[in-house]
């Protein structure tokens, strides 16, 4: 043993610090972990070079389909050569800047309003203006913009449209249902419960089937509803049930004292809910709500099955062109990355809100 004064001078063994130390404590701590690390590394060494070779080294990027068939690696040309059709679908070719601008506005608005502390009346009006502008850009018919019928809306704009309005409209409906389920009035409660459980019990595809196959029979003689709108309604009805369950969680998490305090102030039911309960309850359920919204976004891809041309279906349509048949891996990877970007940023957002909320809770 050394004396105390010398201890300070002895450096820790090289194997415990620096890169080596990190490797040891993170990768080779214990026999089992060492084996796992080695297995993972071996597998990675076998597949990653293969993938890199395929995706980058041997790949072709801007060729015709014919040359693609001769290339050894990935054919990214299937994406680059068809990008406009893939993203905008059947929207008139020379007017495709319009949905592009509309989508940019939407994304900018979403980024601008990400902070829930900024949510106020002014932002609401700003959204109304933005929605109007976007609608105008898509539909046209005013200010010299050529009118484009909704049946031609396809690709990414359709995906975003279905999800955005699906989310927007299902939210209030979901809140109303959650309040209904918590209500003391048996009839209203029963209806809400039946609605929520019925919808949550069946797959979305049956709802879409219903909207495309059965729902038209429910309408009176002479009334028809646009196919896109029917799918939209099915998505709204479906998502609302899930929103309702999340909101119910928030309502139940509220302290009973809040209800009593509100009542003792003499507020009636609507005032109590609007001013006291909902603002708090909805705030604490922002993270799970975003989860539901992510699902809703992903679920819009199901409209493929009822032959709407969302971005997944335009991709499939490209793969059906003789020149591009057989490059589905590349095309699907491209669409998957688009979905990933949207969903991943939403889930990161929900994590950010979650940490904000936790931080606040701790501050109190």
């Amino acid at each position, binding site marked *: 043993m050394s004396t105390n004064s010398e201890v300070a001078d002895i450096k820790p063994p090289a194997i415990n610090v620096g890169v080596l130390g990190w490797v040891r404590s993170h990768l080779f701590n214990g026999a089992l972990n060492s084996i796992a690390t080695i297995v993972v590394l071996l597998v990675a060494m076998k597949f990653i070079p293969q993938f890199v070779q395929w995706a980058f080294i041997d790949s072709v990027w801007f060729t015709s389909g014919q040359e693609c068939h001769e290339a050894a690696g990935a054919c990214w040309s299937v994406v680059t050569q068809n990008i406009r059709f893939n993203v905008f679908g059947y929207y008139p070719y020379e007017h495709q800047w319009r949905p592009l601008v509309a989508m940019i506005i939407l994304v900018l608005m979403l980024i601008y309003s990400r902070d829930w502390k900024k949510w106020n009346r002014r932002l609401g009006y700003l959204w109304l203006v933005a929605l109007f502008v976007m609608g105008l850009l898509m539909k046209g018919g005013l200010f010299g913009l050529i009118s484009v019928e909704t049946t031609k809306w396809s690709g990414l704009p359709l995906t975003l449209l279905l999800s955005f309005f699906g989310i927007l409209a299902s939210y209030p*409906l979901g809140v109303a249902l959650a309040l209904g389920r918590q209500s003391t009035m048996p009839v209203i409660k029963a209806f809400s419960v039946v609605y929520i459980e019925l919808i949550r019990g069946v797959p979305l595809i049956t709802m879409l089937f219903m909207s495309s196959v059965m729902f038209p029979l429910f309408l009176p003689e002479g009334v*028809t509803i646009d*196919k896109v709108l*029917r799918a939209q309604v099915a998505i709204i009805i479906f998502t609302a049930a899930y929103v309702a369950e999340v909101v119910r969680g928030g309502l139940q998490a509220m302290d009973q004292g809040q209800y009593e305090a509100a009542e003792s102030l003499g507020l009636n039911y609507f005032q109590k809910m*609007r001013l006291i309960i909902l603002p708090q309850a909805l705030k604490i359920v922002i993270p799970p709500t975003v989860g539901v919204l992510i699902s809703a976004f992903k679920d819009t891809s199901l409209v493929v099955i009822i032959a709407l*041309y969302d971005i997944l279906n335009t991709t*499939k349509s490209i793969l059906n062109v003789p020149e591009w048949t057989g490059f589905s891996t590349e095309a699907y990877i491209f669409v998957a990355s688009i979905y990933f970007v949207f969903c991943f940023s939403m889930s990161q957002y929900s994590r950010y809100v979650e940490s904000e909320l936790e931080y606040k809770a701790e501050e109190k």
Partner: protein
Amino acid sequence: MHQFKSLFIGCTLLLSSAGLVFAGNGDTLKAVQAKGYIQAGVNGDLFGFGKADQKGVWKGLDVDTARAVAVAVFGNFKDRVRYTPLTAKTRFTALQSKEIDLLTRNATQTLGRDTSLGLDFVQVNYYDGQGFMVPKSLGVKSAKELGGATVCVLPGTTTEQNAADFFRSNNMDWKTVTIESTAELSQAFFAGRCDVMTSDASQLAGIRASSPKPDTYMILPDIISKEPLAPAVRHGDNQWKDIVNYAVLTMINAEEFGITSKNVDEMAKSKDPKIQRFLGVTAGNGKALGLDEKFAYNIIKQVGNYGEVFERNVGVNTPLGIERGLNALWTNGGLMYSPPFK
């Protein structure tokens, strides 16, 4: 709560104003004239019959049929037809529910469909039969050799039933792969998921034309069924049915008279009373159908006669390369026959 409520009401109003269309009481012609276009249900995935290119321009025999109807009603087809791509499964309900005014989606006329699906078929625009397509490398020469094969077939079609009957009556074993979208199914077939694909012969030709290597596939000579493909309209609207019916027949009759889109102007000067009546030089036919007297002239001028439409979309000089066969005029040994226009 109040804000939510008003938002909700706002959304509902917005949505309903965007999508609700009132189509009148079963009077399809009036409804179509009022809205200014025909909503036609088409295939969407099938080369030669109904498919849009990447710019959104629709092409095909069924598409031209819808255009002929539009010309009959409006005098031209530009922006007068809107197309709804439908799957085999959704096509009849789309018609029942008035989502579309006219179904031209290579649908086979059968007694069952005519009577229990709430629709009426009109003049057949393509006489077809069910066939089998195989890769040449398989070395099969007849459908009778297909015992034990895996067969790609579209679900919910008459072909699915015919194939079941065929294999059953020939005591052959088989396996099915059924995928609803023509595109997905044909991709699976090209990749070798099935040995055989069965469908209407015309559809097989269309699918073969969409393959990366069309000459590696062959359509077997066996035809196992009758598939009269006809446009359909809703049951109970006789005027509309007549219009669609005679729009198709106009194209057939025009070919019989030798009138084409090129020579229709000259033919209009013809002294033949039959042709004068047909082209509306002598009035009568148009009024009877509730259309413009020039409807036949317009159809031929803008869409063409049946022969032109056939050759343009599916004929021997197209990638589909189909002979006229049953679809030749009756005078040439085919089945295309039009009643007199008088």
